Every structure is written in C-alpha cells, then in structure tokens.
C-alpha cells in the first residue's frame, strides 16, 4: 500500500511537470482566465446585474470546460501509446491502476490550479458587495466536479487512440452531449417532440448540467455527489478496461 502511494505520487509529479515544461500550459491558463472573465463580465453583463453573486461566473464553466478539459486530458494516454512509452511504464513494477490514478490526479491538480487563478473574481465580488460565501464555495466545488468528470472522459478517449487530435474531438463531443442533454433548450425541444416524460427525466438526470445547476443553488445534495463520483469511477474503470484490452492486441 505504501509503495503504491509512492508510485502514484511519482507519476503525479512527473505528469504535472510535463504540463509545465511546455508553454502550452501557461497559454491555456491565460486563455481560460481571459475567457471566463469575458464570458462573465461581457456576455453575462455582470455589472448591470447589480447583484453580489458569482452565478454568472459559474454559469459558463461547463461550456468552457467542454473545450478546455479535453485539451488538458487528450495527451494522457494517447501520447504514451504514440511514443511507445506505455510499454516502458507498464513493464515497470507499477500497476495499471496506479498509472491511471497518477495521471488522473495530476490532471485534477492542474485544473484546480487553473480554477484557483480565478480568485480575483472572488475578491472583486467581496469588494463590491456582501455575497453568500457558502454559495461561492459550493460554486467552486460544483465547478471542479464538472471539470473532474470531463477529465475522466478525456482520459478514457485518449486511451482509445494514439492520436491526440482524435482524442480531443471525441472527448469534446462526449462532454458536449453530457451538457446538452440537461440544458434547458434541449429538454424543451425533447418535450416539444413528444419524447415520453420518463425518458426525458432519465436523460435530464444523466446530464452533468442538471447536477451542476443543483449544486450552484448552494446545496450539496448526496444525489449530485453520487452522480459525479459514480461517473468518475465508471470512466476510470473503463479506462482500465480499454488499456488492458488494447495491450492484449
């Protein structure tokens, strides 16, 4: 157990440093911060609202993550497969699980760091008014859970292919689908097309957007937590299955 934690830690450290050796990571963080600022301040007309809330800030996060997180996760496994280092990694005394968790956690830490860099928003809203701090905390937690789920999606898609671009696109499509099936305009359309109510309910419940909105209201339900945790576990488990089956052939 001790050695497996050590192995995971080693892999996390290596993956994290590989994010930062290229300028891509910095460009990403800057673009993410700029976009989240632009969306909040310009598109949501933050100041015109005249409310001390970060709701318009968090509202855009799933859409930003849809593009941003696949770009973070696309290289996790596809790069290992393309360069042949997967063979190296899996013939070391490391289990596939340790490698998967190491890479996944490194991606999570990177995303936490990106989101942490948005702290000026929190300072701004506190300076301008007296917001509900609990709600802001919930907002960050909910936002991170979406990011972590998308990261698990792109980890899985990158295990399928040795091409990063393919991994990125498939992951983006899947994330888009996960958002859309709970997005108001889409559910309205489903109702308009006479989709059975139970089916609509099922599809909506499986959307990440539904659970995101629910946490944004300032309450962390066990239902939402179970949704995210089971999604992430399922995706990580699938990644393991894909890696093992790809190895066999």
């Amino acid at each position, binding site marked *: 157990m001790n050695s497996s934690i050590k192995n995971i830690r080693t892999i996390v450290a*290596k993956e994290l*440093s590989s994010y930062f050796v290229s300028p891509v990571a910095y460009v990403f963080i800057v673009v993410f911060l700029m976009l989240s600022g632009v969306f909040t301040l310009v598109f949501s007309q933050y100041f015109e609202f005249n409310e001390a809330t970060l709701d318009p800030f968090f509202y855009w996060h799933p859409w930003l993550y849809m593009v941003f997180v696949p770009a973070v996760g696309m290289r996790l496994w596809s790069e290992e497969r393309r360069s*042949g*280092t997967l063979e190296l990694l*899996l*013939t070391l*005394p*490391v289990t596939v699980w340790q490698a998967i968790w190491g890479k996944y956690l490194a991606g999570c830490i990177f995303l936490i760091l990106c989101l942490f860099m948005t702290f000026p928003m929190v300072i701004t809203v506190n300076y301008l008014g007296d917001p509900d701090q609990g709600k802001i905390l919930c907002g960050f937690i909910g936002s991170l859970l979406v990011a972590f789920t998308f990261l698990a999606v792109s980890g899985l898609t990158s295990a399928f292919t040795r091409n990063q671009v393919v991994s990125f696109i498939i992951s983006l499509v899947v994330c888009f689908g996960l958002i859309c099936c709970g997005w108001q305009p889409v559910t309205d359309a489903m109702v308009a097309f006479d989709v059975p109510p139970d089916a609509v309910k099922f599809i909506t419940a499986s959307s990440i957007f539904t659970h995101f909105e629910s946490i944004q209201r300032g309450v962390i339900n066990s239902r939402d937590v179970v949704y995210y945790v089971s999604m992430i576990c399922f995706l990580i488990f699938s990644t393991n299955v894909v890696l093992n089956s790809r*190895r066999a052939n």
Partner: protein
Amino acid sequence: MIKVDNLTKWFGKNLAVDGVSFEVAKGEVLGFLGPNGAGKSTTMRMITGFIPYDIGTVTIGSYNIDDNPLKAKAMMGYLPENAPAYGDMTVAAFLGFIAALRGLSGRDRRIAVDKVIETCFLRPVRHQSVDTLSKGYLHRTCFAQSIIHDPDVLILDEPTDGLDPNQKHEVRNLIKRMGERKAIIISTHILEEVDAVCSRVIIINNGRLVANGNPAELKAQSKLAGSVVVTIHGVAYNDAARRLEQCDGAKSVQNIAEENGACKVRVYPESSSVANGLAERVHAAASESNWIISELHREDGRLDEVFRTITTSDTDTAQR
C-alpha cells in the same frame, strides 16, 4: 532465472508465438534470433508482462509473471524495441523518474542515476531533453533506464540498433560484463553480435523455436563447417583440385575464385569427424607439389548461413 514454458499467443486468428520454451540461467547471455515478424518482440513483451499470453507460463526468479507481476517486474530491466522515452523530460529527470518507480529514493536514487549516466556515457547530455537527443544517445538513455536498479534479469530488444560501430562495441562490452552475474536475453539481427556476446542462441521462426544451442554448435550445423579454404599460386584450378581431392578425408573441392595466376579453393571434409587435421593434410599436399600458399584457414561455419537455412526452409519447420 528466466523460465519460459510453452508460451503461446494468438493475435486474432494469427498464431504469433507457438509453444516456445526455454530457460536462461544466471551468467548466461541468450541471443534471441529470428527474421522480422517471427515473434521475437512479442515473446519479449510477454516475458516482461506487457502483453498477456494465451497459454504457458513465464517465471522470473521464483515469481510467475501472471501471479506476482510486480515482484517479477521488479527483478527485470527491459529495453523495449525503438527505445521509447519521455520526450519532454531531461535525461537526468527521466532516469530519476524510472529510479523512483523502481523503488529507489533519496540518496540511493541520486547515486543510481549518476552511476548509469557514467556507465552509459551520458554525461554530455545529462541536462538535455530527450526529444533533442541523437539516436545513439536516446538508445543509451533507454538502456541506462533498464539497468538503473541493477536487476538480476535483463531483457534487451535490439540493444545496439542505431548505434555507430564504436557505441556498438561499448554496449556489447557492457552486456558481456553484466552477463557474468545476470541472466540476459538480447534479440538482434546482427549475427556478429551473437558471436561477440552470447553464450547461447535460440532461433525462432514463424513463432516456433527452431534452434537452441551455443554459437559453436549452431555454426557446426553449417555445411561450410570444417571446410578448408586455401589460396594457391602458380597452379591452375583443375590441377590443384585433382591433387587436393586425393587428400585423406576430403570429399569435394570447390572453386571460389581464380585470378592473377592464383586460385582460391574450398576443400570440404567427408564428415565432421575427419575435419580435424584436414588443413594439415591440405598443407602437406601443397608443399609436396611445391605450390605457394598465401592463405590457408579452416572455416568454423557461418551463423548467417545456418540462420538462412533454418529460417527459410518452411517445410523443415513444419515437420519439427
């Protein structure tokens, strides 16, 4: 140290490796030969636990690779084909990463990294990123990775591929030195390498083991083995052949080349048992006839010829 028993692997309907069994003891360097696509890399990947096999067992030390993969892998060092390495890391960081996953930490880890950087002549590129390395350095970096924890078992897939002659020589010496106290498997296409470093050779063709023995034994299978090559001046081939065929134990004489009044002929022995002393008798015959000899040597047999014979006769393979 390494025990492979009845290893079998299917890729879909394709039988890639078919019941391969062999053992490698400590102090042995096993040369693993075979044409491209014969199943060499597949076998090595199964031994190292990278791909699962369908039938058979692989035991490293006392650990089965299936039941105890981590313990078995810990005993092994592996250089995969094409020497993969993480391109965005520096050589030192890459070796440090591998050392950490090999369970080394702190001072031990630094010492291990420094040591392989010395033994593999990587000092000039120590802080260079792996992406920018030349092929020779890349290969040695990956080789360094495989020996960083001083393993008892080494599996090297084409360890000298892409190296220049000097580097090849260095790496072979290194393998030979390590072979004295480790069990090593190397796969190679270069047959001179087998002579230089291997204490035993197996040849695999179409997934089947077709030969297993030490280099000398294999070479003895060559039809050239034991023949005597002689270059004679001042005599025509036909005359020389007539005289040489009368030597004790000589079966036939073959003309290799005839130029500038000299002829180079090969004398085949009747059987390997009379091959000893054939060279002396050829020499005696030549001096009796007052021929001038500029070259005379006995052929041990050639691995490349044996390799070709074994791996191109498909009917032979099927009968085995």
